[in-house]
């Protein structure tokens, strides 16, 4: 369990902190300008987007350098800039932004990976007719995502969060003429919105209890001890405190965005979007926003834990994360679409991050988030390069032998794959995943997650080996021969591949620089850290597991190149299980017959109630009036005579209004109105006399 971070009280904001808002604002403005550009201004749109993103990267780097500088001087600091956005009664709704190690690290990752993907997109989308619009949406996304990162207010974070969801929707459905893309976009938005309504309830609850939505505000923020103490004294339900209940509601939002069980169903479908979008939004950044959110509200999640213990909300986070990790990894084994395999892999890795947060704290989860962003963006962009080279083919059974045709893509992809599998020592994924396993090993609540995550690691190595064997080894099974992608696409791959390896250096047990940075402690180089009890055996276990996965995969699939029509080797041995996994364990089907069926059924009920029940009551009342009118008319014509007759007929017509539909009887209505006004006046006069 991570010890609570003790930062020096917030400093007066430095110039770079004051200007932090520029990081999201510039891409948003670029998007606004690009939205007004004609479709033909392709170059202008791309230049604008890349220029804005470069600017954001530079400011992010400056902010990062500033925070690192402070930290090296022993002043681990958190700088906040807050302002009032809205006032109701005498309550202020404040927004603001925060510069601390967490936001600084995330800023650099998002803007750097984002910039590389923007550049890559110039090549990937070169032939798309809506090229201009694409860069507009990408910029808007980047702005919103960077807004999520710097937000110092749960409300501002939520606003940017929803905007991120909107851009995700727009980009998944970018090829809107494809019905499947349009459906996937809608599914993504609605599934994440299910999480978001929980999130919204968490926000209003937190706001009502603490009177602020700021995270940090010189002691009065909602993530600071004063507010947390209040939350801990409020009982909620099921034995939870308000802190626990609010934490769980916020986790609902995080689970939606980060594709955790049972809200993971949208993420694989999101692969309908262009591949750079999958890399940027649905692998590296947006889906990680849920993890980042939990890291941001960690003081709340952690509130009330005894030393070394866990809290209800963190326990839930851990179990959901571990279950997601293994569930998605299982499904990934039996997929044949190159992007879908990566999508399920992303869901699975997000589960690792959540479990890491739940058991090991902010630094453990965040380190995996950062390393994963690099190697998964690399894998997706490599997959894009493969798809591009294979003339838009996505089925791995129709590929093969690409290592000769696409050497650069092959080498970089393999680096990404080894990082994802957690190949020992050389690759960043090994160190970040080991951090999580180590935390799981020491988790005081249960041992289950540890075994689940170890098994997940085995599956990861296995399904990635299967994929790489199908795609790059054996012989070519497609039609037209493949070709290597242009350098505007491969250069970003090379850069990401470098970081997929190098980033491991800042997170090894002997020099846990990243962790120390996030926690505001000094980073010491200490070889004896390997001597910590259990550490070396753990590294041994994870190495064995990785090699086992790689070996199994290679034995079954390596360079065998089965024809596309042949059943998978595993399918032959365990057809039933394979069928389940191939059909994604029937979660979509389950939702189809429950949630979606209920939605349609209830809509029909609402409509039926309106037409038949309420409408029927109205019709009955109208019928009664009509009957009365006819009786009146009968009495009028047969019993009463003379001038009174006429007045009654008017009344009768008034009663008949409901029943009989007459068009153009304007005079009647006016007369009724006149009558009503006369009656009103008469009553008034009579009553004033009394």
């Amino acid at each position: 369990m991570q010890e609570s971070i003790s930062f020096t009280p917030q400093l007066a904001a430095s110039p770079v902190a004051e200007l932090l808002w520029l990081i999201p604002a510039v891409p948003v403005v670029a998007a606004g300008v690009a939205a007004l550009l004609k479709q033909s201004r392709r170059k202008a749109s791309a230049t604008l987007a890349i220029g804005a993103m470069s600017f954001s990267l530079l400011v992010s780097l400056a902010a990062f350098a500033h925070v690192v500088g402070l930290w090296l001087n022993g002043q681990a600091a958190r700088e906040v800039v807050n302002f009032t956005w809205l006032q109701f009664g005498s309550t202020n709704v404040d927004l603001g932004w925060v510069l601390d190690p967490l936001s600084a690290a995330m800023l650099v990752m998002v803007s750097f990976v984002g910039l590389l993907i923007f550049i890559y997109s110039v090549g990937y989308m070169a032939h798309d007719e809506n090229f201009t619009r694409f860069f507009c949406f990408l910029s808007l996304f980047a702005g919103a995502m960077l807004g999520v990162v710097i937000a110092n207010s749960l409300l501002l974070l939520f606003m940017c969060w929803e905007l991120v969801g909107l851009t995700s929707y727009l980009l998944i459905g970018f090829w809107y003429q494809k019905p499947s893309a349009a459906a996937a976009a809608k599914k993504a938005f609605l599934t994440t919105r299910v999480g978001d309504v929980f999130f919204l309830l968490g926000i209003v609850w937190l706001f009502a209890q603490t009177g602020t939505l700021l995270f940090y505000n010189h002691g009065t923020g909602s993530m600071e001890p004063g507010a947390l103490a209040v939350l801990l004294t409020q009982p909620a339900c099921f034995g939870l405190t308000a802190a626990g209940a609010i934490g769980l509601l916020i986790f609902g939002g995080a689970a939606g965005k980060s594709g955790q069980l049972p809200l993971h169903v949208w993420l694989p479908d999101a692969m309908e979007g262009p591949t750079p979008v999958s890399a940027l939004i649905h692998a590296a950044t947006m889906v990680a926003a849920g993890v980042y959110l939990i890291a941001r509200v960690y003081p709340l999640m952690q509130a009330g834990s005894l030393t070394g213990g866990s809290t209800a909300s963190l326990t839930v986070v851990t179990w959901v994360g571990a279950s997601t990790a293994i569930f998605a990894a299982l499904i990934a084994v039996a997929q044949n679409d190159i992007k879908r395999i990566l999508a399920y892999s992303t869901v699975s890795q997000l589960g690792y991050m959540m479990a890491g947060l739940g058991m090991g704290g902010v630094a453990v989860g965040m380190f995996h988030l950062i390393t994963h962003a690099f190697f998964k963006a690399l894998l997706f962009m490599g997959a894009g390069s493969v798809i591009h080279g294979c003339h838009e083919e996505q089925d791995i059974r129709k590929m093969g032998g690409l290592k000769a045709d696409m050497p650069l893509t092959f080498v970089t992809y393999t680096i990404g794959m080894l990082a994802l599998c957690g190949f020992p020592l050389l690759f960043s994924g090994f160190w970040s995943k080991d951090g999580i396993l180590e935390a799981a090993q020491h988790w005081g609540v249960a041992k289950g997650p540890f075994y689940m995550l170890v098994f997940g690691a085995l599956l990861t190595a296995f399904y990635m080996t299967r994929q790489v064997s199908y795609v790059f080894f054996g012989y070519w099974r497609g039609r037209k021969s493949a070709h290597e992608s242009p350098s505007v696409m491969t250069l970003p791959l090379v850069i990401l591949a470098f970081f997929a390896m190098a980033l491991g250096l800042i997170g090894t047990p002997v020099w846990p620089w990243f962790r120390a940075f996030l926690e505001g402690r000094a980073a010491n180089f200490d070889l004896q850290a390997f001597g910590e009890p259990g550490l070396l055996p753990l590294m041994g276990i994870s190495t064995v597991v990785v090699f086992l996965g790689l070996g199994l995969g290679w034995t079954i699939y390596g360079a065998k190149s089965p024809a596309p029509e042949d059943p998978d080797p595993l399918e032959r041995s365990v057809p039933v299980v394979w069928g389940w996994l191939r059909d994604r364990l029937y979660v979509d089907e389950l939702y189809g017959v429950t949630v979606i069926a209920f939605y349609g059924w209830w809509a029909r009920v609402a409509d039926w109630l309106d037409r038949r029940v309420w409408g029927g009551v109205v019709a009955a009342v109208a019928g009664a009036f009509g009957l009365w009118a006819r009786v009146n008319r009968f009495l009028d014509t047969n019993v009463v005579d003379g001038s009174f007759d006429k007045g009654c007929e008017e009344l009768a017509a008034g009663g008949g209004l409901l029943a009989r539909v007459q068009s153009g009887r304007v005079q009647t209505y006016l007369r009724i109105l006149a009558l009503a006004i006369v009656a009103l006046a008469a009553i008034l006069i009579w009553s004033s006399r009394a």
Partner: protein
Amino acid sequence: MNGIPVLTVLTVLPVVGAALALLAGRHARAVALATTLASVALALYVWLQLPANGAMGLVERAAWAPSLGIEYHLGVDGLGGLMLVLSAIVTLMSVDAAHRVHRQPGLYFGLVLLLEAGLFGSFTALNFFHWFLFWELSLIPAFFLIKLWGGAKRGPAATQFFVYTMAGSVALLLAFLAVFLSTGSMDFPHLTLLASTGELEQMVTAHLGPVTLWLAVGVLAGFAVKVPIAPFHTWLPAAYAEAPSPVTMLLTGAMSKMGVYGLLRIALPLFGPQIAQMRTPLLVLAVVTVVMGAWAAAAQKDLKRVFAYSSVNHLGYCLLGIFALAVPAVSAGAQASQAAALNGVILQMFNHGITAAALFWFIAMIQERSGGERNIDHFGGLRKPAPVLAGLMGIALFSSLGLPGLNGFVGEFLIFRGVFSLVWVAATVSVLGLLVTAAVILTVIQKVFTGPVPEQWAAFPDLHGGERLAMAPVIGLMLLVGLLPQLIVDSVNPTVVNLLAHWRF
């Protein structure tokens, strides 16, 4: 009264415009545009003149029939002022959308302007007598607009609309007469004062026996139909669907707010304790309005009926906020929640008005181009031939969905903030409405704008220059309110504080 009676001028202006429009024949629309533009300017002027302390401003008083308690008494606060601005903008948008009125344009635009006068009159009146006259008067032009220019089933729709609302009005009138008989006053501020000390109830009981609760029911019935509250909403889908789209803009954008306004100006101030007594059933109805409105929208195929039910859902949030805050505030926290809910309700009135009017404006544009086709299943891929229409309507749709950064979010957020701590169950069930609304709106986008383009719509004309120009300020307003809601809240919040201080539950 000193200086120019601005509020009277504001109300008379459209009446004069209506007379001119009747005579102008083919140029009636130009006259109407000029009049509504001037009304917007004047309404904005009134908005800027509001007193900073949230009290009534620009008050005009003149004796009329003192023995009957009738006095010409006008005034605006943040609530009334905002509704004036909203009515003026929505009427302008409606006149703009009605560029295809070939039959009797003089009469059409004359009636639209009369309706605007009715709105202005009822949002400024502080005496029941002329408030009620304007309330009823606005009904008549609306009735004829539906009846004479509506769709195929306009007859039953107009009649149902008229009779339903009339029935509500009769209940309202009877209840108010009882109040007048007991107190001898029809003055809203005076009656509010009486109610805040509990005298009102004593006087009613002394004169008429223990009937205050029934009077509250009568008043609520009048507003329940107008807003509407389920199950008194069945006139609405037919009326909204059969009215010509520019008239639907007026019905949903401005007239539906008269009901909510009445709840805030009359029902809550006068019958606070009675409404507090009936709070649980009323809250149930509000939640039903929110949830079932959204779900009924999901079952519709006609674009106009979809957004008619969606309007029911959106106004349901106003009802939710209003009924949730009708409870004695025992703590500072509860007072903050009441203030949040009431600010949210007023913002929601404005934002729904703008957004719903914009949506029906777009529907009018689509209908013009599709030869009257409105079934969402018969469209597809319109984003291809009409990207600007799709983009701008998309913004309005996401505003309706409650996307942060656009106007729709702010009111709903404040309402949920308030309601959650006052009645958490109601808020928790009502979030279903948020979800279902999102599903409805995304389904509309999916069916109308995405997928392959059917052959018949391959040459669907996009918005032309003038139409883009007309909609740009509205979209700008949605963004402005979404990003800087304090621009409005600055004037609304003092009124909210002021109102809450005078209400007793």
